């Protein structure tokens, strides 16, 4: 384990231990927060009971759909506009200010257009995630060296083959950054949308438990979302490190 990883682990462990201590000594009362060890125990009980399986399946499926759509559309759109300077100059200021727009403000409109099903929640996840993918795709493509583009022409590759075999592999570390952000934004978008416009899903269950002071459900579910998000992000980071290690000259 590297020194940086050790410091990280110590920092997180110290935070959790402090929280445990504050909860156990009554500084934070039980109605406000459970001790972390109780959260872990209750999460295990919750998972074993299977009572949340439907909500988990629904949320994780919607996050996966929103994330996958954002990655597919974001990469394709980034590749399509990359070569058109005028289009980019027109759109890049919009991308730069995009995250100043509160996407949730559109939820009444999305409900009117698409009803109360899963689609508006997926769309909010998609809308939050897609621009991060586009921006990182453009950033990665900008860094593909001219000589690799010339090499593609020497091999007489068409535009699609050039994108598939040269530019996208070359830009892969940047694309992966986009994917990581897309996953994080898809989680935020879908679970946030479930809070306000859903009758099912983890977001709804957290909100329901909160309204009923049911800490034995609320905190374990928050922990579950945290664990899932961190696990996916860590896996992608590991992949990113492998790619970067292959390319870095030691």
């Amino acid at each position, binding site marked *: 384990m590297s020194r940086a990883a050790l410091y990280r682990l110590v920092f997180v462990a110290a935070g959790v231990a402090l929280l445990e201590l504050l909860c156990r000594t009554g500084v934070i009362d039980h109605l406000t927060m459970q001790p972390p060890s109780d959260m872990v125990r209750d999460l295990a009980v919750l998972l074993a009971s299977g009572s949340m399986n439907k909500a988990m399946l629904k949320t994780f499926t919607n996050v996966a759909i929103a994330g996958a759509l954002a990655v597919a559309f974001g990469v394709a759109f980034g590749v399509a506009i990359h070569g058109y300077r005028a289009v980019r100059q027109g759109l890049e200021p919009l991308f730069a200010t995009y995250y100043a727009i509160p996407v949730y403000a559109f939820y009444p409109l999305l409900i009117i257009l698409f009803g109360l099903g899963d689609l508006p929640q997926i769309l909010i996840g998609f809308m939050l995630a897609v621009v991060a993918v586009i921006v990182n795709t453009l950033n990665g493509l900008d860094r593909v060296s001219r000589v690799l583009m010339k090499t593609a022409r020497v091999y*007489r590759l068409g535009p699609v083959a050039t994108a598939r075999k040269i530019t996208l592999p070359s830009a892969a570390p940047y694309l992966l950054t986009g994917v990581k952000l897309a996953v994080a934004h898809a989680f935020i978008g879908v679970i946030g949308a479930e809070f306000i416009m859903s009758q099912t899903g983890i977001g709804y269950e957290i909100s329901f438990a909160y309204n009923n002071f049911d800490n034995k459900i609320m905190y374990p579910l928050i922990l579950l979302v945290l664990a899932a998000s961190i696990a996916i992000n860590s896996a992608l980071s590991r992949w990113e490190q492998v790619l970067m290690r292959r390319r870095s000259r030691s």
Partner: protein
Amino acid sequence: MSTTHVSLRDVTRVYGAGALEHAVHALGPISLQLQKGEFFAVVGPSGCGKSTLLDLIAGLAPSSAGTIEFEGRAVRGTVPDGVGVVFQEDACFPWLTVTDNIAFGLREAGVRADELRRRLDHALDLMGLRDFARAYPAQLSGGMRQRVCIARTLVLQPRLILLDEPFGALDQQTRLLMGDELLRLWRDTGATVLLITHALDEAAMLADRIGVMSARPGRILDIVETGWPRDRDSRIVAEASFGEITGRLWRLLRGESLKALGKPAAEP
């Protein structure tokens, strides 16, 4: 009997020709014939359009006027079949291993698996890359990465090999040794080679004929014949005539190099 392999007639290249006041006349007019199987080098001052000339012959850039033919067919905007290019910059694909880099073009060309394996093995042995077959380019030295690029070009058995300062990033000893390898490959394959270089000694050692270019807009000032036997290697640098050739090249180039630096050509 020698046959013309590549032919350039009154080729020019002007950048920004749309607005005449901003147009930059980069090259030409150049007329030149490369004979089949010869090793031709081009030397010239910085910025004279050497790499532009290579791009035009490769079909990587269009000429503004004149015609370029490879094997009797006009080169227009696409790289013709049978042409291989090695660039000065590192053009290895960093996400692929040495093996996959070298096999890239073969896979694109749909070469059968057994033939692909045979050519790949041959290239790995020829370029001394066998022990690094599974390494990624980042794990190799600059010289080895350039060897990967040369191998990637040679496995396709091009009939015309265009080299744009391929040893520019290497130290002098490695350049001499790489030159030996290049001469051996040239003899073995029988391909026509066009080498762009700023190093007069490199051109004098490797080429049958050397085209000397003027400062921008680059034109061919003179063509120097080296007279070396086909079976030669880097030991010819010790020959008295090697010094004569480089001396002659420098006499032709000195004034042009001064011009390229913005100094009067007549300066002593």
